[in-house]
């Protein structure tokens, strides 16, 4: 957790007869980050042959994708398919799987056809709806006149045939308007469906009634009565709603059907995945006549496990050779050691933030826990409100739960939850709850200080708040320097440790400069530290820095590296520029942390402003709906805007002020070939 995981390189040789069993063991364990053994500089490695990849693997990959696509399309997430998967012992029967997938495809097609039929009915009903008068009660003239696109049938139907007729009608986008008295029916459909409708009506013995007869019989009145109960437009809405439900049912039916088949298809998926990965593993094998050789990196704590697995699979016939990264003489190879950052799962959002910046170099400090600490402290200082924090925490928890349900890995929502928790803690420290000072502050009353009422405790003015953030900045920067020294010490890079940009001398200058600055400010900007002290604090390290160029030149010469000529003037100029850079850089880095106070003050000020607006809206009386609405919107705005700003600024301070002191992000991430989702069985657990 403090540094990246210690790695070991394995070089293994297995006999042809043990190849499949050993490959299976490697997949199950899922810990090797393979390298091409031919990259190892030795005469024998160049003579090894490649293992040809079979066409079966590509086919297995295609089938796996197909299987995943079908389940995805049926609304069954991939996680359902993979959650209990075990590496299968047998190679998959691709033909059988293909044929099973054809079955799935047919089922999906059938459902899609059903959905399409329903969709067509929806579209036709919508069309019918457009052609009907918008009013709730269409005039009799509408039923009398000829319509360009709508066919209207008026007539009667024998009562005993009504139920069957209704059923037969379900496939046509028609509007059936039966009368209450059941002696007259209206049927409306699109002209394009008229022939179909006529056939249906003939089948059910429909007796047509002409509009004139209709008028004479007084049926119009009856129709209108019926319309008042449910006008045609609303009846269409009702039908549309039924059809949409039918579409949903079809979708759910497919989902249920696929869920039932999980038991059958999950092992197939596992077989295909294993076949694909086996091919990937074999791509890294090299062979002699009867042996297969491979190499890769694994975490040192997995050495025993891998040894046991390979020995077990080969019944003791596998030969294993282990190497430490320090043994690598070739610097290129040493630099290629993959990096695993191993942190407790709760730190995963912060590990993602680190990885977003870059992968640290092998053997250096893994800053994840410190990033978590500093990030949350910065966020809390900028967004310290228990109420707002609670909202952010709930959003984070809700989002995380939703993502988990969808089977998606996500680090953003857990990060939001952490930020919410931090805001709650700082809210208690500052005594703020939705901008109201109703909690007793455990540290100081932020609101009172910003509004100029802070009279108790050590923090009484905005200057005090600014000072806190500067102290905090010094802490972060100093930690960064310490980490850099630690990294350099581990790497044995003495020149960089002492003379480097974040080296001991720069640390000495930073400490000296900080002390001098505080001394000067503490004496009301009138006195600097005594001269002898200034000499020790600033002049000595500055002069020692002058030795950097000549020393580097000398060391390059000793190591046989190419080196140019060294000119005294250039050395002096570079020294002056470097000193300037150190002073201005570290000063601005430290002052940069004042933004933490800035945003915290803005948070309080914004809330105060919204309370004042709410007061103004209330006038002399108590709060009305308007005032509460203003407060609600104000809180929402502060949570949204300030939350985003605080999150971004915390990230920025970590990346630029903290990482720039020690972090070298050109490492190669550890990516073992594993059957299990994620990088290994352990990390996915």
């Amino acid at each position, binding site marked *: 957790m403090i540094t990246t995981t210690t790695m070991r390189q394995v070089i293994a040789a297995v006999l042809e007869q043990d190849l499949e069993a050993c490959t299976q063991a490697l997949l199950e364990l899922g810990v090797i980050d393979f390298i091409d053994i031919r990259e190892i500089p030795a005469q024998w490695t160049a003579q090894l042959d490649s293992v040809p990849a079979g066409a079966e693997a590509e086919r297995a990959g295609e089938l796996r994708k197909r299987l995943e696509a079908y389940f995805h399309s049926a609304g069954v997430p991939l996680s359902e398919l993979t959650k209990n998967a075990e590496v299968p012992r047998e190679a998959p029967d691709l033909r059988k799987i293909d044929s099973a997938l054809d079955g799935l495809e047919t089922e999906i097609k059938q459902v899609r056809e059903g959905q399409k039929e329903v969709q067509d009915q929806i579209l036709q009903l*919508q069309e019918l709806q457009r052609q009907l008068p918008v009013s709730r009660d269409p005039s009799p003239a509408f039923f009398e006149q000829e319509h360009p696109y709508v066919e209207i049938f008026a007539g009667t139907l024998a009562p005993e045939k009504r139920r069957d007729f209704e059923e037969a009608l379900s496939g046509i986008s028609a509007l059936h308007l039966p009368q209450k008295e059941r002696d007259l029916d209206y049927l409306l459909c699109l*002209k*394009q469906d008229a022939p179909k409708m006529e056939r249906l009506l003939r089948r059910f013995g429909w007796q047509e009634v002409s509009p004139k007869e209709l008028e004479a019989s007084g049926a119009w009145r009856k129709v209108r009565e019926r319309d008042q109960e449910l006008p045609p437009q609303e009846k269409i809405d009702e039908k549309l709603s039924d059809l949409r439900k039918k579409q949903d049912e079809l*979708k759910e039916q497919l989902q249920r059907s696929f869920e039932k088949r999980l038991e059958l298809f999950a092992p197939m998926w596992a077989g295909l995945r294993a076949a694909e990965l086996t091919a990937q593993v074999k791509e890294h094998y090299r062979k002699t006549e009867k042996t297969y050789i491979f190499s890769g990196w694994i975490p040192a704590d997995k050495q025993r496990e891998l040894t046991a697995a390979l020995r077990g699979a080969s019944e003791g016939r596998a030969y294993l050779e282990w190497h430490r990264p320090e043994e690598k003489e070739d610097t290129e190879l040493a630099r290629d050691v993959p990096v695993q950052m191993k942190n407790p799962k709760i730190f995963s959002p912060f590990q993602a933030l680190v990885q977003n910046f870059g992968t640290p170099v092998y053997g250096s400090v893994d800053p994840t826990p410190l990033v978590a600490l500093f990030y949350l402290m910065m966020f809390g200082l900028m967004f310290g409100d228990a109420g707002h924090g609670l909202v952010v925490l709930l959003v984070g928890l809700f989002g995380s739960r939703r993502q988990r349900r969808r089977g998606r890995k996500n680090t953003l929502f857990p990060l939001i939850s952490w930020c919410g928790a931090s805001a709650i803690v700082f809210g208690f420290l500052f005594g703020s709850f939705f901008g109201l000072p109703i909690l007793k502050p455990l540290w100081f009353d932020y609101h009172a200080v910003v509004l100029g009422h802070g009279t108790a405790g050590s923090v009484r003015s905005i200057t005090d708040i600014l000072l806190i953030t500067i102290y905090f900045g010094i802490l972060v920067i100093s930690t960064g320097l310490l980490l850099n020294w630690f990294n350099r010490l581990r790497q044995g890079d003495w020149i960089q440790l002492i003379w480097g940009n974040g080296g001991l001398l720069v640390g000495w200058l930073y400490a000296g400069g900080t002390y001098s600055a505080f001394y000067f400010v503490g004496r009301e900007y009138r006195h600097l530290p005594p001269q002898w002290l200034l000499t020790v604090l600033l002049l000595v390290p500055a002069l020692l820095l002058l030795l950097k160029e000549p020393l580097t030149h000398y060391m390059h010469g000793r190591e046989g590296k190419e080196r140019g000529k060294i000119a005294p003037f250039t050395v002096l100029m570079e020294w002056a520029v470097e000193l300037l850079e150190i002073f201005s850089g570290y000063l601005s880095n430290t002052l940069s942390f004042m933004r933490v106070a800035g945003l915290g003050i803005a948070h309080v000020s914004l809330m105060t402003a919204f309370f004042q607006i709410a007061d103004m809206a209330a006038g002399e009386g108590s709060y009305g709906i308007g005032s509460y609405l203003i407060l609600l919107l104000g809180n929402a705005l502060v949570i949204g805007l300030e939350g985003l700003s605080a999150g971004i600024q915390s990230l920025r301070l970590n990346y630029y002020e903290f990482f720039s002191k020690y972090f070298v992000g050109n490492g190669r991430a550890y990516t073992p070939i594993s059957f299990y989702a994620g990088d290994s069985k352990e990390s996915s657990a």
Partner: protein
Amino acid sequence: MAGRLKRYSFVNAKIRTRLGQLLSDKKIDDLLKCRSIEEVASELQQSRYANALDIYSQTGDIRAVEFALLSMEIETLREIASYLDSAPADYFRCLVQGYEVDMLKNALRYWFDRVVRGDQRESSPSYLYRDFLVHRLDFFAIAGASSSQELLALLEGTPYQRLLQRSIPTVEQNQRIFELELELDTYYYRTLAEGIRGLDKKDRKTATGILQVEVDLQNIDRIVRFAAFYKKEERQGFDIFLPGGSISPAVLRKAYSSDDALEALELLLEHGYRSYRIFKPARGRRVFDQLNEVELLLRRILQEEARRLLWGYPFSIGTLLAFVFLTKKEIDSIIKIVNAKYYGLTAEAIREVL
């Protein structure tokens, strides 16, 4: 300079963040290899097209997917227009008008079939844009208008009313809507050219370059198709050239009056498209194969131009146009792939038309 900076910095930064969302060539290749629409949807589930493709799993209707994708295309243009002001905003609104004209043509075709040709069997188009594009138009009402008077009344307050007032008698008399469609296209390209004239010199040059290739593409296509389908004397009644292309009207007319399609195509390439003379379709093949090759070539030219613009001077209309073009191309490819999967076409068959 400061004006350009102010005008384009925000929208360009916004658009540039989306460049990474464009699908890679490998992704398109993966889509081609898919066997079904379900696989295409699965491949695109992490992209911005996921929701559009999900519609298929709800409705089983590829027209609904196409419509959703087309709506995304229109939204891209409308969004860009909303971030701009004055002439560039007007120009992007002109581009939106292209979709309005297409939608109007679509609705008019249904109106024509029902009212002029008296075909009552067809229902009106199901997927027409309902939101406001450039003019207040109800495409469904247009498609369902019961007479030419009703149709014209629905177009009141739009420039299309005057245009249709002039053309509808001819449409009714000739029982043909083709000329009206040509007029609408010509109107659109004239409007677009006017929009370009409002831009400043640098933007004008960029927009004109794109417009010219697009118009040439359409003119070549039309001339070759007319030459293939109509005899020389039958062709004279049609005014089919769109304005704004790089090929001179004289060359277009000469090619149009050629004896056959192949001759027309060669003439256009030889005289009209000098800068790309390097391309010469293989002799002895069918004219439509050759036309297809020419179309592919011109589309490639457009694509290369767009990619070049993308990384050019940032404070100009270039990046925006390039993004619009590449988005349009991408959506067009997805629509073609979805259709091809629906009808069971092979990857090779689709690749030819992408």
